[in-house]
């Protein structure tokens, strides 16, 4: 071993993780996992939420220190004590949440990321160098624009460019395409793939999209519940085989077939307009009708007004103008109207938008009806009724909680969403509004939620499903609408929708 060794030579290098074990207290997050990323390859890391993918890459990047196991970088064993060590070795990571500072410009973000930020930044010189750097890169970003003003796709490109700007040659990408349209995803991954083929870069990509694995990855490693479930060359595997390896023997809820024809108009939006938090128009005079027994899917890249639209429907935001009608009656999202029209809501980030984290699972399940019989008599609430009702629903919706009295914030994301499902879909439903209901959930929860939504539709509910996951929309909706810059720019029956046309509209072309 040479003292004061130099960083690995230029060009791509590989990283191996050998016999990695990681314990958090009693919990075994990684159990003797092995990962071999060849130099100059595009490697996919597959697994469900909680399978240990993030833990594994965080061990490689020095955020966590594995209980046991070794990291070998470019053929040499390395003790990576912190992210700075990893960076010095040429390892870089693009996180799922953005690490750019929104209130700063792209150029400021890039320069700031460097280890050697000068005490006084000479902006004209830096800008010239950045321009020259961008000239060599496969995709461009506006340097002078504030990060908060550019699209999610551009931000993701920025994150990747930042790593390349820092001369990282082993990139870990954590679900890099979740905010991109299919076309953008293909563009970004395609260009990274070219750099890999040229031998400039090695890529380890965490993903759950089989399409991207099949199209771009050379090798794949699959984790399940902290263990190595499988690994191999992508060319020798099928998406089905990979899915089976990922899920294991767990039984998934079977989704009921689509039955019945859409009936009368149930939910009508007329020229609805809403502002975002900065006062800009986020929802731009949209009109839409959802009929009973129909799922209308709203597609779009996040940040195109979907959140504000759902907030208006949920009563969390006031509309500027326009009208909402439910079954012909004007609707202003009051509790009384919601009850009368049997409205149900599955908002995104359910722990934040649909639950009170510090209250018990039973209380959270009772929110819709806690003030009426049998839960209340006059002024008095009946806690036993809460708990009894919660027990039935916990069993029926397979919510994993220690007791009905456990605070709901202690549950995993999938179980929080199941508790919300139990509350919102447990009774009769006439109108259901769901926003990214499966975001970040495991296969079992996703299958259950999809089945419940389809069942509600079959029972005659009008369903408005807002989602960033195009596959989910194509699977569930009867009709598809694309939202871009606060407007509905495209509408088609899902059975006739052309994926490339949908993707083009999502990108605003």
């Amino acid at each position, binding site marked *: 071993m040479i003292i004061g060794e130099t960083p690995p030579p230029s060009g791509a290098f590989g990283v191996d993780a050998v016999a990695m074990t990681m314990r958090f207290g009693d919990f075994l997050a990684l159990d003797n996992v092995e990962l071999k990323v060849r130099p100059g390859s595009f490697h996919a890391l597959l697994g469900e939420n909680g399978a240990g993918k993030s833990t594994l890459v965080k061990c490689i990047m020095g955020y966590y220190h594995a209980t046991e196991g070794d990291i070998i970088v470019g053929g040499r064993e390395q003790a990576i004590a*912190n*992210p700075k060590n990893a960076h010095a070795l040429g390892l870089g990571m693009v996180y799922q949440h953005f*690490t750019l*500072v929104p209130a700063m410009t792209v150029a*400021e973000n890039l*320069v*700031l990321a460097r280890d050697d930020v000068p005490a006084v*930044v000479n902006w004209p010189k830096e800008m010239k160098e950045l321009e020259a750097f961008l000239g060599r890169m496969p995709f461009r970003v506006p340097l002078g624009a504030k990060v908060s003003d550019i699209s999610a796709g551009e931000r993701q490109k920025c994150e990747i460019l930042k790593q390349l700007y820092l001369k990282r040659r082993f990139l870990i990408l954590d679900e890099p395409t979740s905010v991109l349209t299919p076309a953008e995803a293909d563009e970004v991954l395609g260009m990274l793939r070219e750099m890999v083929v040229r031998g400039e870069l090695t890529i380890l990509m965490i993903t759950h999209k089989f399409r991207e694995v099949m199209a771009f990855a050379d090798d794949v490693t699959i984790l399940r519940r902290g263990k190595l479930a499988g690994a191999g060359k992508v060319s020798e595997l099928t998406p089905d085989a990979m899915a089976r390896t990922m899920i294991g023997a767990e039984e998934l809820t079977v989704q009921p077939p689509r039955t019945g024809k859409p009936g009368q108009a149930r939910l009508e939006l007329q020229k609805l307009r809403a502002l975002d*938090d900065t006062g800009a128009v986020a929802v731009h005079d949209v009109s839409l009708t959802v009929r009973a027994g129909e799922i209308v899917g709203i597609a779009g890249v996040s940040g195109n007004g979907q959140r504000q639209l759902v907030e208006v429907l949920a009563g969390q935001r006031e509309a500027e103008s326009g009208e909402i009608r439910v079954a012909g009656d004007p609707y202003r999202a009051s509790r009384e109207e919601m009850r009368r029209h049997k409205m149900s809501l599955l908002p995104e980030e359910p722990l934040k938008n649909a639950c009170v984290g510090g209250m018990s699972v039973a209380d959270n399940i009772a929110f819709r009806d806690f003030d009426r019989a049998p839960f209340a008599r006059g002024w008095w609430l009946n806690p036993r009724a809460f708990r009894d009702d919660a027990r039935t629903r916990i069993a029926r919706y397979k919510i994993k909680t220690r007791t009905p009295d456990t605070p709901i914030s202690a549950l995993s994301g999938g179980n929080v969403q199941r508790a919300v499902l139990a509350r919102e879909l447990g009774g009769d439903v006439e109108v259901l509004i769901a926003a990214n209901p499966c975001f970040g959930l495991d296969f079992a929860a996703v299958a259950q939620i999809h089945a419940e939504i389809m069942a509600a539709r079959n029972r005659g509910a009008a369903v408005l499903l807002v989602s960033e996951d195009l596959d989910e929309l194509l699977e569930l909706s009867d009709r598809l609408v694309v939202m871009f810059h606060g407007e509905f720019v495209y509408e088609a029956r899902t059975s006739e929708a052309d994926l490339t046309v949908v993707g083009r509209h999502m990108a605003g072309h």
Partner: protein
Amino acid sequence: MADGSIGLWTVPLAVLGGAIRVSTPFLFVSLGECITERAGRINLGLEGTLVVGAMSAYGISYLTGSPWLGVLAAGITGALLGALHAGICSLPRVNDVAVGIALMLFGTGLAFYLGKPLIEPTAPRLPAIDFGWWSDIPQVRAALRINVLFLIGVVLAPILYWAFRTTRWGLLIRTAGESSDAARAMGHSVLLIRLRATMAGGFLAGIGGSFLSLFYPGSWNEGLSSGQGITAVALVIFARWDPLLCLWASLAFGGAAALGPALQSVGITSGYHLFNAAPYILTLAIMIITCSPKRTLTGAPAELSITR
């Protein structure tokens, strides 16, 4: 005007002079708070820092005979109080607003306790520069006798504005205030950045305090600060965390505060107390005009506990 009387012109001149005099502590405290808040912390304790600064400046100036050593001492005690605030806030589950209120009470109490023997003696005061030498009208000369600290503050505001954009420290402070995740991902210690920013804020607030005891009103007593520290914190909010706007806002505030005495000097005494309330009315008016329940404040650092 041979008799030196300039009639109603006295009022704007007195307001101008008053604005410069009264705004100085506002300016220093708000610039300090601007640094602290840009790093993602609110330090409400600056009211206490201001009073402690005033007391220590007076004491040191009296003991050493040098008002500038007093200013330095005020800055250092302010920085120490800032370090105390930042230190407590870096513990888990501590709310910076609550700590700030505690330190505000602690600071004023401490200053009154330690400052008891300082009420009697007279300490050397800070110098002022006579910019009105060209005029022989006494009101003009009085208005243009500008204290040195104000001049330093006026230079400091654009320097801070520049520093937030082009220096490594400025960029790091903004990163810590806008996205602690991003700062951490770059391998910086957010707590350390905030500690330094809070200390810098305390340093400036302490200097603001030294102005109170060493220039205007120019003595040490327990009624020295009438909430300037806390008002300056609010000032930062409607200056939208911009040092240059802090300068203008401080001047506007100082001008409003000088309105009552200025009117009194020309003999308008009715509604004296009402005019003295002008700064607070101004605060209310600006708040009502610029704030809306439907939108978030533009320019607010995203990590502040009030915007998160």
